[in-house]
């Protein structure tokens, strides 16, 4: 029996299906949030095709929720595109942070990988790639599974939109914060990271309240990361 277990352990899937499995917590979060987006898009007067197209083409949670609202408010294409750009600019930092892990990847593979880089897939890949180099098929499976669930959630949200009056069904709107908590905790590997996370959160709240409600995330992140490097250096100097 013990031998059987060991061999089963050895044959643990490493490829595509393992990636699908690793993405399941994201699926648990993406279906409800995608659903909320679908409901909002339906209420904003977007058609089925465009609602789903946005989940396929843009694939960004908060930007799509803001976008659906702006379409509903008859904002101009320029406003929509500019707002989306500012809200999603934070991915610049995530893309740079993952770049060293993609050494030796072909250009088209990077192009495909980057297309599905979200807050959640970024955080998951950071953990997956921290100690080892997972198979690319597994990495792509994570992304494809995540986006599929997002598109699926948007679709059923749109179809259910007519029947739903409250866009915040029981507990579902906590899916995003819960995902952020689940992804944040394992990143806090040293006290200095905890300090900078608290600083970044505080800055983000302050900026948000001051009216920087689209750029608060990227500004807070850059300031806290810069201070983090400084504090780390200072701690090193004072301990040596």
């Amino acid at each position, binding site marked *: 029996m013990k031998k059987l277990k060991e061999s089963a352990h050895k044959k643990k899937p490493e490829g595509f299906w393992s990636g699908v499995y690793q993405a399941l917590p994201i699926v648990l979060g993406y279906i409800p949030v995608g659903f909320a987006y679908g409901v909002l898009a339906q209420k904003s007067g977007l058609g089925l095709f465009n609602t789903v197209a946005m989940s396929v083409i843009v694939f960004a949670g908060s930007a799509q929720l803001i976008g659906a609202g702006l*379409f509903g408010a008859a904002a101009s294409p320029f406003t929509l595109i500019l707002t989306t750009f500012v809200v999603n600019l934070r991915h610049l930092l995530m893309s740079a942070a993952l770049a060293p892990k993609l050494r030796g990847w072909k250009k088209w593979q990077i192009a495909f990988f980057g297309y599905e880089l979200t807050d959640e897939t970024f955080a998951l890949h950071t953990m997956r790639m921290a100690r080892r180099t997972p198979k690319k098929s597994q990495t792509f499976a994570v992304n494809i599974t995540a986006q599929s669930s997002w598109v699926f959630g948007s679709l059923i949200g749109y179809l259910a939109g007519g029947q739903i009056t409250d866009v915040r069904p029981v507990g579902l709107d906590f899916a995003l914060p819960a995902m952020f908590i689940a992804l944040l905790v394992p990143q806090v590997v040293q006290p200095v990271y905890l300090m900078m996370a608290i600083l970044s959160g505080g800055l983000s709240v302050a900026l948000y309240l001051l009216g920087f409600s689209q750029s608060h995330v990227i500004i807070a992140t850059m300031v806290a990361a810069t201070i983090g490097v400084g504090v780390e250096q200072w701690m090193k100097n004072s301990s040596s």
Partner: protein
Amino acid sequence: MDEKLVFLTICGMGAVTYLPRLLPMLLLSGRRLSPWIARWLSFVPATVLAALLAPGLLCRDGEFTLQLDNVFLLAAIPTFLVAWRFKSFFGTVATGMGLVALGRFFFN
């Protein structure tokens, strides 16, 4: 807006989303980063996630709130404990959503 213009707008939104996702990894993937930049980037996961999370827990309708009826903040505390103690991504998300559902059921 007619459907066609909406679709074109969405394509524009997609383009401005894709470029910041793609360009840094495309340009930096083969290079050795200076240690300073590498250290700066090592802070990004924790700080960006905290910056994304905090306003959702502490603000309601554009205002700061530490009230006891802030279900999100109350649910966040045990959710943090589950994430820290059990290190289960799936369990953490499920706990958080379940707690908010329970909180709304009992207090609203």
